[in-house]
């Protein structure tokens, strides 16, 4: 039995397109459902869903970093404000981590504290090496 080649090509193209669309749909769906919402300290202090995971961005409050055994505790404040939320973190502390620097840390909020996922701390590169204003000053 021979199939018309044009029809065969059409079937292939339709199959391929369907698979691609299904995959793209899965991609879109899973990314939205698995995503972690970015939040600032003031947003989390105001209202935080304990079931959800957040990605907190802000600056490490001066004088707030303490080590408790294997845990690191510090507070993160808004970039341009003073509202702060305490963070409990375990795992690798990135080399540039320091008070006053901008960090991103992921976790859930429990009793007003962000309990961070292990190794989720990212520190942005220190401004000394980036901002020209710093060099000029």
């Amino acid at each position, binding site marked *: 039995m021979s199939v018309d080649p044009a029809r065969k090509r059409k079937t292939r193209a339709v199959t391929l397109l369907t698979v691609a669309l299904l995959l793209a749909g899965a*991609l879109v769906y899973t*990314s939205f459902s698995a*995503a972690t*919402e970015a939040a600032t300290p003031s947003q989390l202090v105001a209202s935080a869903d304990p079931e959800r995971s957040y990605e907190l961005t802000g600056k490490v409050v001066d004088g707030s970093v303490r080590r408790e055994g*294997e845990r690191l505790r510090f507070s993160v404040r808004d970039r341009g404000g003073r509202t702060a939320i305490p963070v409990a973190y375990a795992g*690798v502390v990135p*080399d540039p981590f320091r008070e006053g620097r901008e960090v991103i840390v992921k976790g859930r909020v429990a009793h007003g504290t962000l309990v961070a996922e292990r190794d989720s701390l*990212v520190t942005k*590169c220190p401004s000394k*090496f980036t901002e020209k204003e710093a060099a000029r000053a």
Partner: protein
Amino acid sequence: MAAVGSACLFVALLSALFAVGASLYGVRPGRRRWIDSSRRAIYALAALVLVAFGLLEAAYVTSDLSFEIVTQSSSTDTPTFYKLTGLWSTQEGSLLLWVMLLSIFSSAVLFATRRRLREIVPYATAVLGAIAAFFLTLSVFAESPFTLLAAPPAEGNGLNPLLRHPAMMIHPPMLYSGYVGFAIPFAFAVGALVTGRTGADWIRATRRFALVAWTFLGLGVMLGALWSYSELGWGGYWAWDPVENASIMPWLTGTAFLHSVMVQEKRGMLKVWNVSLIVATFVLALLGTFLVRSGILSSIHAFGASTLGPPFLAFIALVLVGSVALVLARLPVLRSEAQLDSLASREAVFVLNNLVLVGLCFVVFWGTFFPLISEAVTGTESSVGPPWFNGYVTPLALVLVLLAGIGPVVAWRRATPANLRRAFAVPTAVAAATLAALLLLTPAAESAPSLIMFTLVGFVLAVVAQELWRGTAARRTMTREPAPLALARLVARNRRRYGGYIVHAGMALLFLGVAASSAFVDQRDTRLVPGQTATVGDYAVTYRAPTARFLDDRSGTGAPVTFGAVLDVRRRDGGESFRLRPSRNYYAASEGGGPMGTFGRFFQGESTTEVDVRWGLRRDLWTAVQPDLRALIGPIREANRRFSGVPVEAQALILAAIVERYRREAPPATFRTLVSPMIAWIWIGGSVALLGALLALWPTAGARSQRVTSLYAARLGRELSRA
């Protein structure tokens, strides 16, 4: 010096603009000399940019602090090796590096094609000139590397300690060479589209450049991963960080391109696909360059917000829109010359491989830009993490490795059952045996993806070995050479083909390392005091003693203070035992900065993890230490109180005493220890792939023998016609 450099860049910009104008003007018949002139303008451009680059490097080596960028990223006490690399850690320097590499690549390709592709070359020259002009415009008018400071400071900032790693000397230039290299096939594709000469000529002319770009980019990505593993204190090599993703995306589409162009060369198919792929690759390369510098996505690499966002985005948009319009306008001449005959054919496998690679690229793209996408759609910025990426990438990678085994040996057009049997009987048996052995002898079944990956790796290696074996055997029956010689000559005579096979074997080994190390790693974070022991996997790790060094940094990064630990590591079943010495380097905070005073600033600046790894084919033992410096606060305060005013030499003695105090007090320290099985195979596989790529790139005697053969054929033809 700065004036000379600025002038060089300005004249280079004029050369680039002249090259664009002259090459387009020279397209008309009888204006051949304008084309030659535009080519020479590109050579001049390369020379001028090289001079500018050389002047800047000289300023770095001599620590000329009147240069703004030298002040930013170097200092008199930065080790010379890292002075040299300081240039491309700055935005100005990296732009210049980009345009320098572009001008070198452009000169090379225009020299190679100076007597060929007469229709396409002028347009390609114009495209390359325009790209160079864009970057030079930024360098001349917005981000001049030759900006001078009115009042040079006494000392510069020094190179960011995180970048003080040998891989950083080569990683950025490699990545940039990769990004830039794809400009060459892109420019020729544009030329082919404009002239309507959309056969395989442009592909043949730039194939080697595409392969060079691919090799550089792959090597750059691998060195970045190695840097992450051996310099950053987290123990991994890939984190789906936006900038890593940006570098892998053009590599994926570039890999697809290298495969799909073979289908066009052989069968005249996939023309639209090929030009689209190279456009996508080049746009992604531009995007990669842009992402590192833009700061629009949060990343450890995002070196602050830059002013270059708008012009860069406009340029990327222009390239994308222009290329798409050109492809659409030329659709009629991009018709396929043939149809896919069968799904059991090499072209079908290549198409599938392309779809998987492009799918992978799309996954990475979506995940990387998801923060922007979600903000546009829902109004809140959110991001996806490594588990999301892994969920898609793992199955796609498995399919890819399977195809890497099938593609090289399945027949073109339509494979017969006999062909399939001959090609796959042995490899399938090897794969089955691998699977059985893994199930019986190892705990590999605990991770299904890894188990499948190991089996597929066995399959790919068997395919490559079988091909080498058959080729060698065939050659020996004809030549009676000894086996090693026959193998060497076989590979040397078919470099492109066997180079490709070796790349496939290398990638299989790389995935072996990825699968084993990601599924079976043992990791432990512990806080120990000297004498205590922690167990990690099959190893017992004992914290023997702390170490403290002052002005004696063994890794050559120029850090004044180093604290570390001596660890005794013993296999618990009584096997090997060895010592590891992880440490941490401390760089002084700038003078007067920090609340800790004269002496405290030496412990308050940047600090970097210096990992110690016991490398091994079977497993790596990786350790990092985070010393606890609280014990030093008292001594530092006391020193600040009593000795702040003493001369510098005396300060050094006191500092040495404080540093020594750490060793004597021996406070607890936090350790991260990893036992990573077979992770070394990532680097080994990558090196094998590199070797294969170099083999495929090496100029063959083929080109010459082809010429000789065609001369011979012509003579034969003449003689036959006379007869």
